[in-house]
């Protein structure tokens, strides 16, 4: 089953009079349970593609279908609703809310989904244990290492049992050991829960975890291969 399907998608950014064609007629389908890597040099369109799959942005032309739903004509709030239940994000920077503890950061998507306090508590502790930071649950991000923060971000992305998790350069700001830990956890969760992972990277060690590698160059998919 396809979790995401993009058909002939183009994304043009206009800054002043200058137009930049970040994606130029891309078509790709992501299947449920995949562990897919988007690779390519800087400016190849990896992040733009992730943002379109994640409904954070809208294409200039073409169709984006997420979990069977056409997203092109959705307004801001409808896209927020779709993201809330279907998509989780892990960003390159450790995108935690600095005023919230690890526990509260993971709890946030559950709050937005209207879960009861008991459901939230059970799910948050389950996830923090899964990413091995349960003992740091009540620390704020500035009291945690980069690796711990990124593992909490992974836990947050998984909180609502999304179909799809999008990770943009998830290990770029981590040392080798922490990068490996984060990737091991993502891979393990993919195997255990069947959640689909799509991550953009140009780190060969990260690419080695992928089952499918989609290569972009100048806004086009130049290679799509299993490994």
């Amino acid at each position, binding site marked *: 089953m396809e979790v995401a399907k993009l058909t002939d998608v183009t994304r043009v950014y206009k800054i002043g009079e200058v137009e930049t064609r970040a994606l130029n007629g891309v078509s790709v389908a992501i299947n449920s349970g995949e562990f897919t890597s988007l690779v390519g040099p800087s400016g190849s369109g990896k992040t733009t593609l992730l*943002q379109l799959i*994640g409904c*954070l*942005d809208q294409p200039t032309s073409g169709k984006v279908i997420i979990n069977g739903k056409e997203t092109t004509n959705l307004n*801001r*709030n409808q896209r*927020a*609703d779709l*993201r*809330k*239940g279907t998509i*989780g*994000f892990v*960003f390159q*920077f450790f*995108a*935690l*809310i*600095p*005023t*919230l503890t690890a526990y509260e950061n993971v709890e*946030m*998507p559950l*709050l*937005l*989904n209207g879960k009861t306090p008991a459901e939230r508590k059970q799910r948050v502790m389950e996830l923090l244990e899964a990413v091995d930071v349960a003992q740091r649950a009540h620390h704020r991000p500035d009291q945690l290492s980069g690796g711990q923060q990124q593992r909490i971000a992974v836990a*947050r992305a998984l909180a609502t049992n999304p179909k799809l998790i999008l990770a943009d350069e998830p290990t770029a700001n981590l040392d080798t050991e922490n990068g490996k830990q984060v990737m091991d956890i993502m891979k393990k969760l993919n195997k255990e829960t069947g959640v689909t992972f799509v991550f953009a990277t140009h780190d060969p060690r990260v690419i080695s975890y992928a089952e499918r590698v989609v290569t972009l160059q100048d806004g086009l998919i130049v290679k799509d291969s299993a490994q």
Partner: protein
Amino acid sequence: MMNYFKMAYRNLGRHRRRSVLSGLALAMGTALLLFIAAFFTGEMRSSMETTLRLNSGHIQVQDADYDPDKLSVAWEYLIENPEQAAAQIEALDQVQAATPRLFASGIVSALDESIGIQIMGIVPESSANDPYRDGIMSGEFLTADDREGIVIGLPLAESLGLKVGDSINLLVNTAEGNVDEQKFIVRGIFSTGTSAYDKGIVFLPLAKAQAFSGAGNHASMIFVLLKDREQADVVAAAIQGEGYQVKTWTELNELLVLVDDFSNAYLAIINLIVLGVTATVIVNTLLMSVFERTREIGILSAIGMKGRQIIALFLAEATLLGAGGIAVGSLIGWALSAYFSKVGVYFGDLGISNDMLLQDRIYTYLTWESAVNLIVTAFIITLLASLYPARLASRMEPVEALHGSN
């Protein structure tokens, strides 16, 4: 809901100094406005009470042709047998006191100085004269049968260098249009706390004033005080009579009633200006917060927070900032008002006419109504002001916000 406030509280704590300063701006604005409201209310209350008590009373009964500006004692402008009329009016249930008063213009001279004054003939024992009797600073008040005594105000005594027991010459314009002169002995010196009034009036017993001015058994008016001034129209209707004019305190104090209405409008304008300035501070604080937290807004948006929830988050911050600032401001404003309601603010003789008498010291008076109105208005303006930054945050595109500063 609690989570919004928890997040809002922590966000305000990130830049504690900035949050405290913004809250303080709101606190100072609220305190200042509460004090101004208390001051205006105190001033108008005092002016109304003083003017009614000393000058106009609640009702005046005059001859149909009487003109208070002329102070004429010609018989055709006066009420005949005033004590009888006053007794009938005083018998009414709503009336606290009704007493005849005779006004004449005159000149007081002592040593080589002369000052133009108003002579008021009074029935000394009437309770309507309590403000003068209670205000005796030295000597004693008049008695009805005193034929030589006069009571004068403290500022007049000071400017003529007079003390109790001294003699003064008093000239009066008589009913026949002549001038008569007689020597009087200062029996007492009074102060009502209103220099503008005290410096221009002297008191004689009614009988003496009538004899001295040639007014016979006449008075300029029956001065009426009611138990409740809101009953003025009812009582006025009950004592209407042929050849008389009956005026209520609202008719007698048109200027004062007008100024009272205007003062409320002035107060509203001052409130809007000060609250507008403080609202700008709040907007500025929240705008800085929005720009500093652009990426965070992007993250919240990415994980599914809707526009209205982002608005709610910033409104929660404004609510905390507003509630804190307004609470502190209310306390300071209340404390200032309470202090100055005891000690007053000294202005001295403001030289205002008898139409609007002000005491030399104005005592603040904070009403619950004005305090609650102001607090609610300040809070609503704070929330309205915060809508702009909140909406700005809610309209950020997640992609652009995620690339913003952290």
